[in-house]
């Protein structure tokens, strides 16, 4: 089975992520920019992910620190700054970001089967796949990382 995620696809991630944050969160471009913090350096990270399952298998994982996840949820739900975000809203909001990232990436994979429902957890998803790319971003100065995985055990580049 061939690798799903290659360099050309990862090039789309920044554009897709910026479109999502502009349309759904910030209301104007410029909130999400390229960053430089690897996922391994995030403190209290939460992970949201969806899989593409079919003839090919891939995963998109969005990772951010808990405080950033809370801020994303507040923005999506039009909540005031500083208001407490309960776990249900965090899971819903952060999962929806992964869902839209995954759906847009899936559109780039021909005959790619189905998209799974999003999952969100403070633990990284277990996988025997291979991480093809890690796209480091910064939203309002806070790190956000999108990782793309080939779940079929082949390298993406």
């Amino acid at each position: 089975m061939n690798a799903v995620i290659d360099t050309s696809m990862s090039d789309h991630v920044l554009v897709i992520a910026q479109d999502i944050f502009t349309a759904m969160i910030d209301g104007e471009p410029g909130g999400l920019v390229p960053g430089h913090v690897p996922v391994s350096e995030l403190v209290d990270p939460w992970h949201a992910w969806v899989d593409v399952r079919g003839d090919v298998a891939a995963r998109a994982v969005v990772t951010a620190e808990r405080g950033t996840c809370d801020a994303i949820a507040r923005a999506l739900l039009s909540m005031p700054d500083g208001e407490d975000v309960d776990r249900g809203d965090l899971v819903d909001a952060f999962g929806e970001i992964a869902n839209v990232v995954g759906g847009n990436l899936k559109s780039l994979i021909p005959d790619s089967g189905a998209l799974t429902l999003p999952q969100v957890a403070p633990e990284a998803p277990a996988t025997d796949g291979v991480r093809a790319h890690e796209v480091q971003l910064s939203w309002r100065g806070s790190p956000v990382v999108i990782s793309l995985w080939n779940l079929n055990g082949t390298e993406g580049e």
Partner: protein
Amino acid sequence: MRVLIADDSRVMRQIVIRTLRQAGYDGWDIIEASDGAMALDIALAEAPDLVLSDWNMPELTGIDMLRQLRASGSDVPVAFVTSEGSAQMRQIADEAGALFLIAKPFTPESFRDALEPVLI
């Protein structure tokens, strides 16, 4: 205008409602469903003027909800608001009888462009 918004994400239902308002569609009577089976039940029971449905939902996907609606004889208008807007998905939606498919992320303009031709 009574509109059923079906999405398993409360956040996304809220964003769709907010975006409709930003697109100028104020005052619509909004009903919400949190999965495809609930959407099917409500659509059959209440025959809204429009169903705006996610595709990928628990219990019943949006496309299966539409197919079951049509199989039951309902002609309630259905459109999709979903994270995947590939040509393949659009063709499947079209063949099942959907009015249109809006891909996430969307803007108020996306909704106006899709809705204006069908709200005549």
